[in-house]
């Protein structure tokens, strides 16, 4: 009898996972989860979630768990490269780092010595913006931003100007207590794992989850109710909910009076320079109308305000409470459920029912926590009472040209329900809340050779005086951010940089320096036009953008369009600071930040981008990067992380500061800081005490401690802003008041869209052209197992998403004679792209959608040209325009008129069946890219096994 299978199977039960384990921070997306990387014989054996980490608490998503294949991808760049053929030809020479640094220094030095603004420094999904932004300011160019302008700025600006925090990054539902959660346009993004974990916890408790989303996948799939709204109409829906709440008198008046500017008096003086501004006393304090005392400072502790009416101040000015103006607007017939129903694609009864549900949970099921606390008026409360209705919103709101106002409307809805940072509602993540607006206006009004710019390049305009425009009202920045085209362009407008640079609008630049942004493919609206701009030549045959420097770890589609390529490391090979100065890992439980440490050594001639930037800073003699004698101030990035101080005592990391490591937030540099982080699993966190945990905008204990830790400049109440005075200031300028006024062609636009109260308007692109021929909205979303471009060179993830189809409502397709797997043309005003169709139930009838960034250009990412990504994967980007439809006057970005947020989801298309001979391969199909020299030959069979038992 041969051996018995059970008896002879060689199972080693207790083999150590690896011979070494190191903690660091994941970067398979921007979620910033803690990971434990197990190594065996120097290879990565296993990556798991760090159970002690506050972000992911031991879990790890599909992307994070596939990190090994990103680490060992054949698409990793091998060495610095210099372009030797025409741009885009893919002809490179491998060069040494010395030569690369000399070339970069030569170009940049010239720019800095002559006209620093001719450097446009734009980074992509960078997690070191506190360094990159600081470096740009030191260089002296205002032309810096990361990718926020095409990502989330509507939400950031809408939130920061309304509640001093925001959805997405800076806030989260009260996962432990919410009884009702309504999410808007939430799909896979950062946060990734906390949302998954939170939804599971919420559902376990029996809370109801409602998802407002045109597409029922991912988080919408697990929602108890799916509201399949038409893209771009969320604002209408929210305002109809507000209409219903006010109409039925389901409003938390006490919350409004205590925590918002609802009682603040707004001057009514149509045509006057003070119209719409707050009435203030001599000290500049906003006034409210007290029932007994008339106009007194709104901050008065025993205020008993009247919220409705019209009053006359002693100086004769007519005023009305902000609440009155707000209620009047939303009670308007245009926001009644019946009026919005058709446009939103939802029945009026359903809108009414949802409003009633929300109100029922908020007002009939309040949540009381037995936690004493003290408010900003010094009054002690025995309990914390909350409205357990939470809202969360992400790109589905943000990526529309009406997203800023939609987001503000959503925050007003929260305020009416008394559901901002109360038990069971949406909560701020530390270091939020921040003052409204959070700080001074943007720096960069002037720039001069060899001179740093003082202040933050990306900051917070309070009004027209803070804009970066010349006397004629023209933009000072190459991306037109903080101009009248995008007054609250807080995150810059990366999506318009290359287009403006090619048009030399407002001026010619010399060097475009980019990091980790695939602008020649999926990060661009209209990639082929972007490529045209990158390769455009002037009449002398010189490139209109003379120098392009690009840093990336991988052979992306953008690499061939750079003149100098600085190869970066992978996320497992470098130091990073997930800094409290940028986008830290704080939660509603308290602030936190994190680091990455190298866990494997690079096996290529590559350097971490941050090290390179710091060395460039020193070579260029940027003051903060050199010592008095001109020698480099920092050896490398870890040295910078520990020793750089933005203001005395405040550096990239908040934990273990002070010489002995005992200080939090503020304290002198601690040479031992990184070791302390590593010992703690590469993160630091501070737990808020229970008494600080809610009502942070008006919680005296919280605010005092936040100030002490350097998270706030003062400990004043953050009064939530229903009526936005900064917006009214822009509007007044458009109406002809003040020294800084918009140029004529923008006057009406600024007047309309800088409305101090949220309103709904059809997305700009749809207003500006005939949408009749394009009946369908088209949107994308990110699959949970892919992050932007960085999945297709991952051998495991590309098996999950190797190509993408266009999804369409089954019922709709049947009426149009389209069938599953048909090849179709998707056509917009901007062009057409060919795709394969897939039919589904859970999609709004007037919407088509696809997964984002699956399609790849043939040859890129070291995929064979026949790979599915190139043949059958497609980018919807090809039919999106970065500009609004043709109009008189200068062209305007296809973006939100307030914030400049790229309006990816305003797209309208028609879908028609391809001719039979056209089926099979996508189109456009740009020429194949050739790999740089000395790239490894991708294997045809991969047998990854780091020390397995049965090799």
């Amino acid at each position, binding site marked *: *009898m*041969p051996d018995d299978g059970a008896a002879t199977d060689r199972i080693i039960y207790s083999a150590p996972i690896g011979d070494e384990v190191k903690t660091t921070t994941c970067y398979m997306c921007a979620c910033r989860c803690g990971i434990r990387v197990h190594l065996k014989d120097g290879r990565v054996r296993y990556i798991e979630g760090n159970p002690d980490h506050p972000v992911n608490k031991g879990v790890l998503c599909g992307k994070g768990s596939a990190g090994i294949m990103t680490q060992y991808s054949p698409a990793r760049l091998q060495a610095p490269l210099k372009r030797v053929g025409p741009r885009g030809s893919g002809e490179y020479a491998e060069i040494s780092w010395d030569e690369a640094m000399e070339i970069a220094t030569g170009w940049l030095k010239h720019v800095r010595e002559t006209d620093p603004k001719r450097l446009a420094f734009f980074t992509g999904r960078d997690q070191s913006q506190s360094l990159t932004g600081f470096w740009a300011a030191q260089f002296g160019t205002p032309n810096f931003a990361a990718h926020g302008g095409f990502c989330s700025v509507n939400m950031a600006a809408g939130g920061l100007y309304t509640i001093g925090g925001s959805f997405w990054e800076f806030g989260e539902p009260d996962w432990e207590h919410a009884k009702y959660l309504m999410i808007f346009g939430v799909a896979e993004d950062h946060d990734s794992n906390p949302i998954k974990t939170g939804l599971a916890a919420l559902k376990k408790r029996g809370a109801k989850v409602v998802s407002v989303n045109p597409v029922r*996948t991912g988080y919408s799939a697990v929602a108890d109710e799916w509201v399949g709204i038409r893209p771009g109409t969320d604002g209408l829906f929210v305002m109809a909910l507000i209409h219903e709440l006010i109409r039925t008198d389901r409003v938390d008046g006490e919350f409004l009076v205590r925590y918002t500017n609802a009682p603040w008096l707004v001057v009514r003086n149509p045509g006057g320079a003070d119209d719409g501004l707050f009435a203030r006393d001599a000290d500049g304090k906003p006034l409210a109308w007290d029932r007994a005392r008339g106009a007194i400072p709104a901050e008065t502790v025993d205020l008993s305000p009247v919220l409705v009416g019209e009053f006359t101040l002693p100086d004769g000015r007519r005023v009305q409470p902000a609440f009155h103006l707000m209620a009047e607007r939303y009670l308007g017939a245009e926001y009644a459920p019946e009026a919005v129903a058709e446009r939103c694609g939802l029945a009026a009864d359903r809108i009414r029912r949802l409003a009633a549900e929300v109100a029922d949970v908020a007002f009939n099921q309040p949540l009381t926590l037995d936690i004493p606390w003290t408010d900003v008026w010094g009054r002690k409360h025995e309990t914390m009472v909350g409205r357990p209705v939470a809202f969360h919103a992400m790109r589905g709101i943000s990526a529309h040209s009406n997203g800023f106002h939609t987001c503000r409307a959503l925050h007003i809805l929260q305020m009416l329900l008394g559901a901002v940072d109360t038990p069971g509602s949406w909560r701020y993540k530390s270091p939020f809340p921040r003052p409204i607006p959070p700080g001074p206006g943007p720096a960069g009004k002037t720039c001069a050779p060899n001179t740093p710019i003082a202040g933050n390049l990306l900051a917070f305009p309070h009004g027209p005086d803070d804009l970066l425009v010349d006397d004629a009202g023209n933009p000072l920045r190459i991306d037109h951010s903080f101009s009248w085209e995008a007054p609250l362009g807080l995150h810059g407008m990366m999506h318009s940089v290359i287009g403006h640079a090619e048009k030399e609008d407002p001026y010619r630049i010399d060097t475009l320096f980019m990091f980790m942004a695939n602008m020649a493919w999926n990060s661009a609206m209209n990639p082929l036009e972007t490529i045209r701009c990158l390769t455009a030549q002037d009449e002398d045959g010189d490139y209109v953008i003379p120098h392009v420097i690009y840093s990336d770890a991988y052979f992306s589609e953008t690499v061939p369009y750079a003149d100098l390529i600085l190869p970066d490391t992978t996320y497992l090979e470098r130091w990073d600071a997930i800094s409290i100065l940028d986008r830290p890992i704080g939660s509603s439980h308290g602030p936190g930040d994190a680091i990455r440490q190298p866990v494997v050594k690079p096996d290529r001639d590559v350097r971490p981008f941050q090290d390179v930037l710091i060395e460039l800073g020193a070579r260029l003699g940027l003051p903060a990067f050199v010592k008095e004698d001109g020698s480099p101030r920092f050896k490398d990035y870890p040295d910078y992380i520990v020793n750089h101080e933005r203001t005395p005592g405040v550096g990239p990391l908040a934990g273990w500061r002070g010489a002995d490591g005992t200080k939090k937030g503020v304290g002198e540099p601690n040479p031992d800081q990184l070791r302390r982080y590593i010992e703690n699993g590469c993160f630091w966190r501070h737990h808020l005490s229970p008494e600080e945990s809610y009502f942070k905008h008006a919680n005296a204990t919280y605010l005092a401690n936040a100030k002490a830790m350097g998270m706030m400049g003062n400990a004043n109440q953050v009064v939530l802003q229903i009526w936005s005075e900064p917006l009214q200031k822009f509007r007044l300028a458009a109406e002809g008041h003040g020294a800084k006024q918009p140029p004529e062609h923008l006057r009406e636009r600024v007047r309309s869209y800088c409305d101090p109260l949220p309103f709904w308007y059809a997305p700009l692109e749809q207003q500006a052209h005939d949408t009749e021929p394009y009946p369908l909205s088209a949107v994308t979303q990110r699959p949970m197992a892919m992050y932007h471009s960085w999945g297709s060179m991952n051998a495991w993830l590309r*098996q*999950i*998403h*190797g*190509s*993408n189809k266009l999804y369409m409502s089954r019922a709709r397709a049947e009426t149009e004679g389209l069938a599953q797997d048909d090849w179709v043309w998707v056509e917009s005003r901007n062009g057409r792209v060919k795709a394969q169709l897939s039919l*589904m*139930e*859970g999609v709004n009838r007037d919407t088509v959608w696809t997964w984002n960034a699956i399609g790849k250009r043939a040859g890129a990412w070291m995929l064979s040209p026949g790979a*599915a990504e190139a043949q059958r994967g497609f980018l919807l980007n090809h039919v999106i325009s970065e500009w609004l439809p043709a109009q008189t006057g200068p062209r305007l970005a296809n973006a939100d008129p307030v914030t400049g947020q790229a309006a990816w989801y305003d797209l309208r298309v028609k879908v028609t069946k391809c001719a039979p001979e056209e089926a099979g391969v996508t189109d456009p199909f740009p020429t194949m890219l050739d790999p740089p020299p000395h790239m490894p030959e991708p294997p045809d069979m991969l047998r990854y096994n780091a020390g397995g038992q049965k090799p």
Partner: protein
Amino acid sequence: MNPAPSIIFFTVASGAGYGLLFWLGLLRPLGQVPQGAGFGAAACGLALVLIMFGLLSSTAHLGRPERAWRALSQWRSSWLSREGVAAVATFAPAGLFFIAMIGGDEGLARPMGLLSAAGAAVTVYCTGMIYASLKPIRQWHHPLVTPGYLLFGAFSGAALLAMLAGFWGQAATPAAIAAVLGALAFALKRAYWASVDATPPVATAESATGLGFIGKVRPLDPPHTETNYLLREMAFRIGRAHAKRLRGIASLAGFAAPTVLLLLALLVGGVPGGILALAAAALALAGLLAERWLMFAEATHTVAIYYGMPERG
């Protein structure tokens, strides 16, 4: 199911070989086939060649053919193992049968022939049971599948025997048997097809996922966008028209025509009869290859349901 050529050739060839061995072992003692060493060697030799080529072909389907010997161990539970054991065991009497016939040792040839016949029947029964025991494939997990394997083996074996006997001018009995079996095979296969066509699928997307309580279940996204082993192996699909055509070819060329030819052979007798039997045997084997290809191609596996490929729809 994926119609793997190695397995199709194996089952058809070894089925015919065992059928031939079976009838030779049974009819020779009864004097119903030529008794000489030449005929015995030719018939038994052909049977063994078919069996060996079949078995060799089957190892092409193995990932690790060098370990094939291990397949003999699990005869207590596995029909595949039993088939292996039976096949190996049958070689002993069949070999002795062959030697005895050449050597003219009738005392040995008769019992060995009978033992070979028994071994052949058991082996083909095991082959049938390999398929018939697989519940996820309803077209195989069917009461007519094992009888079918036995009958088709017996039929094709008898046709071969009739062909060889015809060359010796003594084809009457095997040809008669083959003709009867051909008719039976025709009837059985038609009955089988009628039955599987009328039987509902084992499972539906609703039952396989347990989500039927919500409503109709449709696939949205597969786990991977490209194909995989499971899909290649278990989700092979054949077009209705193509299947219908092949069914016609299999039943007419494989069963009906050989039956008619064998009846004709009976009538004409002699060498012309042998030639007719040869044509009948060739047609039967070709028809069985089509039948076996269809046996796989038309078989549906429950796993295909998870990939949104219901067997009808």
